[in-house]
């Protein structure tokens, strides 16, 4: 699966999404419910804007000094007897984990939810290893695994596109589940399967919400308790993290945990807020063997560019939860493991324009993402920046070609051209205009409307009607000028 989740072109994926009425309803319902929960949890903090600014400052500072903090973190992990591996690519990260498994003759791997492990394709690698069994222990990821490794469609709620009946059917087929589709019963069934596996697991793989530089420990914010089992039962633990996922001290982690829980799930804190590392001598549980894989995989492409702020992201997913495009096309529509507005900005940075160049155009630039982002990433502006790089710098065209856009550029900047367009628009639109069937009042008063337009207008009229422009003598400019002449002021 990796970063790219689908080989289908965007338009085909959009058609699939459009047909998936259940997914659309589920996402819309989740978005609406999250809206209230999230805003409520944020309001409790008092001045949310100040908190956002603090979050932005912490993230900007950390990214500006990223090499120093990574080194500090790495040194502190080593001091405790843990190992840090810097993986340049997904392949290097995969290989490191693979070597570890072979070396230690690992048989059972438990995983807690982690986007980075999906990004680097850890699961297919594990499945290919003979004698190794793997289990996703986040309930939603477990459901996806049981459903033949279906793709996650949200970075916080991976199985948001499935309803309880679909899940019941998966459990019945794969686990012999006989019960009803009540979530509590489905969860109980999953828990029984998982618990047994947990107790036999010899490796735990987790992601990482934040890595604390000055103490060499990692911070996990979860709600199900599975991550805590993943880091306490198996003797070997591997943490996979993006290289930007670091905080200087616990103090900053506290601020970001607050922003994260409230933004991601509308809770004041997640049920489990864990800080842990290698098992210390006086501790009873925890990994004796502790590895942290720190992944670049394209992230450093953003450093020193207009896209640097995308590394501020704390993966709360709130931009997905407010996005009207995500609302309709769902996570799978994006074809990237990172969907939604953050995905449309991040995916091209990580995977390039050839693979993900269409995503920055899949936005109406409504700015809901920028408004909600708890660390103030100017997401919609970065979408425009991606478009600018593609068109102005790389000559990649989208929708309209360069010639058409240059005509628009001229027409919108040259008064005489615009005025002559206004003069001829009415006559020019005559053959296309229909007068009948007007149901909307005060919109089509100058000779009806156009329901089938050519060229650049086609995209518009495929969906909705276009008013016919008034005659040159009846437009606003003419009215204003005539009125001035008549002295009617």
């Amino acid at each position: 699966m990796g970063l790219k989740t689908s080989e289908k072109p965007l338009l085909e994926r959009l058609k699939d999404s459009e047909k998936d009425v259940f997914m659309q309803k589920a996402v819309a319902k989740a978005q609406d419910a999250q809206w209230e929960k999230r805003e409520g949890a944020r309001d409790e903090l008092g001045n949310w804007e100040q908190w956002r600014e603090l979050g932005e400052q912490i993230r900007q500072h950390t990214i500006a000094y990223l090499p120093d903090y990574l080194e500090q973190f790495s040194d502190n992990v080593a001091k405790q007897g843990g190992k840090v591996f810097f993986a340049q690519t997904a392949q290097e990260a995969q290989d490191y984990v693979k070597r570890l498994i072979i070396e230690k003759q690992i048989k059972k791997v438990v995983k807690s939810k982690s986007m980075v492990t999906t990004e680097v394709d850890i699961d297919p690698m594990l499945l290919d290893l003979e004698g190794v069994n793997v289990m996703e222990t986040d309930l939603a990821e477990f459901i996806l695994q049981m459903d033949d490794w279906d793709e996650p469609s949200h970075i916080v709620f991976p199985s948001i596109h499935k309803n309880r009946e679909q899940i019941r059917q998966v459990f019945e087929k794969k686990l012999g589940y006989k019960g009803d589709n009540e979530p509590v019963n489905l969860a109980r069934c999953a828990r029984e399967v998982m618990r047994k596996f947990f107790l036999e697991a010899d490796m735990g793989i987790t992601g990482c919400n934040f890595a604390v530089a000055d103490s060499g420990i990692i911070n996990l914010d979860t709600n199900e308790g599975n991550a805590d089992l993943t880091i306490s039962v198996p003797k070997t633990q591997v943490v996979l993290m993006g290289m930007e996922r670091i905080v200087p001290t616990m103090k900053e982690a506290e601020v970001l945990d607050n922003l994260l829980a409230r933004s991601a799930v509308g809770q004041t804190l997640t049920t489990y807020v864990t800080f842990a590392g290698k098992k210390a001598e006086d501790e009873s549980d925890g990994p004796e063997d502790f590895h942290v894989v720190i992944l670049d995989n394209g992230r450093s492409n953003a450093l020193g560019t207009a896209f640097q702020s995308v590394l501020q992201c704390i993966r709360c997913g709130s931009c997905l939860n407010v996005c009207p495009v995500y609302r309709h096309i769902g996570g799978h529509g994006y074809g990237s493991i990172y969907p939604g507005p953050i995905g449309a900005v991040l995916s091209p940075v990580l995977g390039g324009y050839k693979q993900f160049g269409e995503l920055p155009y899949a936005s109406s630039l409504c700015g809901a993402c920028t408004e909600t982002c708890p660390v103030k990433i100017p997401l919609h502006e970065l979408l425009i920046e991606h478009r600018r790089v593609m068109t102005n710098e790389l000559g990649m065209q989208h929708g309209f070609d360069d010639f058409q856009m240059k005509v628009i550029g001229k027409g919108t900047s040259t008064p005489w051209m615009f005025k002559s367009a206004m003069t001829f628009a009415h006559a020019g639109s005559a053959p296309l205009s229909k007068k009948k069937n007007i149901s909307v009042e005060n919109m089509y008063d100058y000779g009806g409307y156009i329901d089938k337009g050519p060229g650049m207008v086609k995209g518009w009229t495929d969906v909705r009607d276009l008013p016919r422009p008034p005659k040159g003598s009846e437009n606003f400019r003419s009215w204003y000028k005539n009125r001035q002449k008549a002295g009617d002021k």
Partner: protein
Amino acid sequence: MKVSIFSTCVVDLMFPDVGKAMVEVLERCGCETEFPDKQVCCGQPTYNSGYVDESIPAIRNQIDAFEGAEVVVGSAGSCVAMLREYPEIMKDDPIYYPKAVELANKTYEFSQFLYRVLGLKNVGASLDAKATYHRSCHMTRLLDEREAPFVMLDHVKGLEMVPLPHIENCCGFGGTFSVKMPEISEQMVTEKMNDVVDTGAEILISADMGCLMNIGGKLNREGKKIKIMHIAEVLNNQVDLARMDTPKINVKG
């Protein structure tokens, strides 16, 4: 006070009544108006499509058109928000940057100007109908104007405002997005249309003709009976001068 009218290219080309209403309301409030003939478009169609280089002439043309204006009042939240972005876009242009700052500082959206600059809530309008308001994304989030149109509409006599569900969601217009990504835009505008219809409103009001052209176009395509009005048309409807607030500043001065 002399107000330079920033009609926006959509109003200029398609909706003369909106421009007329804006001029009549402003003059009724005591403002003098002028229409700088050189103005065309704020530059969003090219800029937002990533053709930033191609948008610069449009931006320069707008800056030139309104140079020397006392105050600029625009008919669309989105286009006004774009004018407010000019300083950031032109920051490396030594000649146009200071002019861009000046223009950004004197430009207002129509309802914002009435409410925040003139200090008006009631301009004497009345409209006997049940209506709902579509909040445009750029006016709300980029211009950060969340109050003015609601206050102004609250003071229209006889007007019953019903809240629009999912008011926070984009209607799917997004400028060139509506034409280049019709597959997504259609789903967005369909949900918006259904929300509008569900309110039972007889009139859909907004401060952005781009959004109204989109939602109105979908409503017409589906044969839904409704009336579309720009907020200027509402505030210019059946005006009773006796009910009008007096501007808080000396407009004649």
